[in-house]
């Protein structure tokens, strides 16, 4: 090795090191940008109303208090009673939406993955296309439909409308999973005498459990976070889900910021925990269809 080659090699190594360090610094800044709002949400939720209204703000509350959280989960108070009610409504609506979406989507996704029937491309196109349209396009007619069916102010209206986005998404995600299960497995089962439905039920279904879990989490979180339909269809307090319900803490003049932050924090816990525990499935579901291995 000549001296020149050596110094070129060293420069290259330094170059690579430089890239790595700039990557680290970038990640650090990004981490700050990402978590700061959430930390501030938490810190604010520990303040009294008086402590929150200070400028410059107390970066850490002088007298941290869990009072705001107690208020939310205390069923004897007004705030607590409503909050618990919203929480249950959210869980109920999200769970039912998820079950319905997955049960209906599983056979459809399987058919789209495996069968080639006339109209299949058109129908799949229609399913995918739905994901492109905003809730607002459907809002006016669905609102009128719900009014006609007498479903305004009921959870039925939410569950039904949540299927407008839950179902296409579930079909697409599940199809991604079925596409990656080798057809040969079913063919072997067919040779061994299974019917096509048996092959689906006994061979493919068990293998697609991770996909079903992932799709379920996905549609649960989607329903949990949904706002626009709930905001439009529900006016009665006892029916509201969390994203709409927490509005009660907010008003232009006298917003209870610590209370609002405590409520948003509580609202975020279930989805964040669900996501952290089942992260692997979640990430896989999302990328399965988009990345061809």
């Amino acid at each position, binding site marked *: 090795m000549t001296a020149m080659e050596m110094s070129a090699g060293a420069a290259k190594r330094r170059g690579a090191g430089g*890239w790595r360090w700039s990557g680290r610094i970038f990640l650090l800044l990004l981490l700050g940008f990402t978590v700061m709002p959430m930390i501030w949400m938490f810190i604010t939720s520990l303040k009294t109303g008086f402590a929150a209204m200070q400028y410059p703000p107390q970066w850490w509350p002088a007298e941290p208090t869990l009072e705001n959280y107690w208020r939310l989960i205390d069923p004897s108070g007004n705030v607590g009673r409503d909050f618990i009610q919203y929480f249950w409504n959210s869980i109920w609506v999200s769970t039912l939406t998820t079950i319905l979406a997955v049960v209906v989507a599983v056979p459809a996704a399987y058919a789209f993955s495996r069968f080639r029937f006339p109209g299949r491309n058109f129908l799949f196109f229609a399913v995918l296309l739905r994901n492109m349209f905003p809730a607002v396009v459907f809002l006016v007619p669905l609102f009128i439909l719900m009014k006609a069916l007498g479903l305004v102010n009921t959870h039925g209206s939410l569950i039904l409308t949540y299927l407008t986005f839950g179902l296409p998404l579930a079909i697409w995600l599940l199809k991604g999973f079925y596409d990656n299960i080798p057809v040969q497995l079913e063919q072997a089962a067919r040779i061994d005498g299974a019917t096509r439905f048996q092959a689906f039920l006994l061979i493919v279904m068990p293998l697609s459990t991770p996909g079903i879990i992932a799709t379920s989490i996905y549609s649960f979180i989607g329903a949990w976070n949904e706002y626009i339909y709930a905001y439009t269809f529900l006016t009665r307090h006892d029916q509201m889900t969390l994203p709409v319900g927490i509005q009660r803490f907010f008003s232009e003049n006298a917003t209870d910021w610590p209370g609002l932050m405590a409520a948003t924090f509580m609202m975020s816990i279930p989805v964040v925990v669900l996501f952290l525990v089942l992260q692997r499935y979640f990430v896989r579901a999302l*990328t399965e269809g988009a990345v061809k291995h």
Partner: protein
Amino acid sequence: MSTVPGQAIFRDVPEPRRVGLSQKVWNSRFDYLYVAPALIVMLIVIGYPIYYTIELSFFNTPASLALSAKQFNGLDNYVTILTSPVFWKVTWQTVLWTVLSTCFAFMIGLGAALALHREFAGRGVLRALLLIPWVVSAVAASYVWKWLYHSDFGAISAMLTQVGLIDKPINFVDNTNTSLYALIVVNVWKEFSFAMIMLMAGLQTVPDTLLRAAQVDGASPWQRFWHVTFPHLQGVSMVTLLLLAVQNFNSFIIPWIMTGGGPAGSSDIWITHIYQLAFGRQRWGVASAYAVILFLVMMVLGYFYVRALTKGDDARAGA
């Protein structure tokens, strides 16, 4: 496998030659049983609303929901929209919102994906933390950022004051010049991690051997990225950009909760505008016409979207 492309579609049909459409439909009648429940639900909650929106867009509607009193007025609603200056203002803001949010989210996501690609201690934890904004509801995000931006007690103003960049709190959100950009920051915060996971998955498909070969041949890190990694990411980048663009075009929650489209319409985008027209001013017909225009614009995007998503789809068939 060497099949003629068109043939793959008919693989389940016993006689591939010269069968009529009705015969084909009959032969695959059991296939339809699998999709039937999904189709019925979709017909009710998707097909019907689309039909009804199109119908309403040609009518002059009463403010109440007594829609039997509606009157046909041809293309009047469309003319009203296209000749109103508000339409063009909102459209321009929607373009700004969509393009800026999409580009920034994508670039930050790409940077994060590249930086996270190499294994290092704490990588999993870091990835999980970066993903949280995307999981948290947009409602929560909107309220938190509203509080961060608060004109009197906002943490952002306070921080900028403390490091000496400004001397009195800035009103980010209630300012016609800054409101849209302040909201774009929130939106990018919310969704850059989506681009990040998509691209991280894409990076895993880049063959290691190619990268190593390039390294042996003396390619610099930048050359390796540009000539090896980037071409492999093109497919997933397209999908990610499209999904982000669609999602941003359809945004509602962040602008609605944070500003309601204000002040003075400075952060109004299409969706918030339509919502305001329909449920604020009860102009159902005009709002429906807006939705139809939006629908048509989305169809164009949709063509590319579906093509990107179904690429290679026909390679798999029949068990």
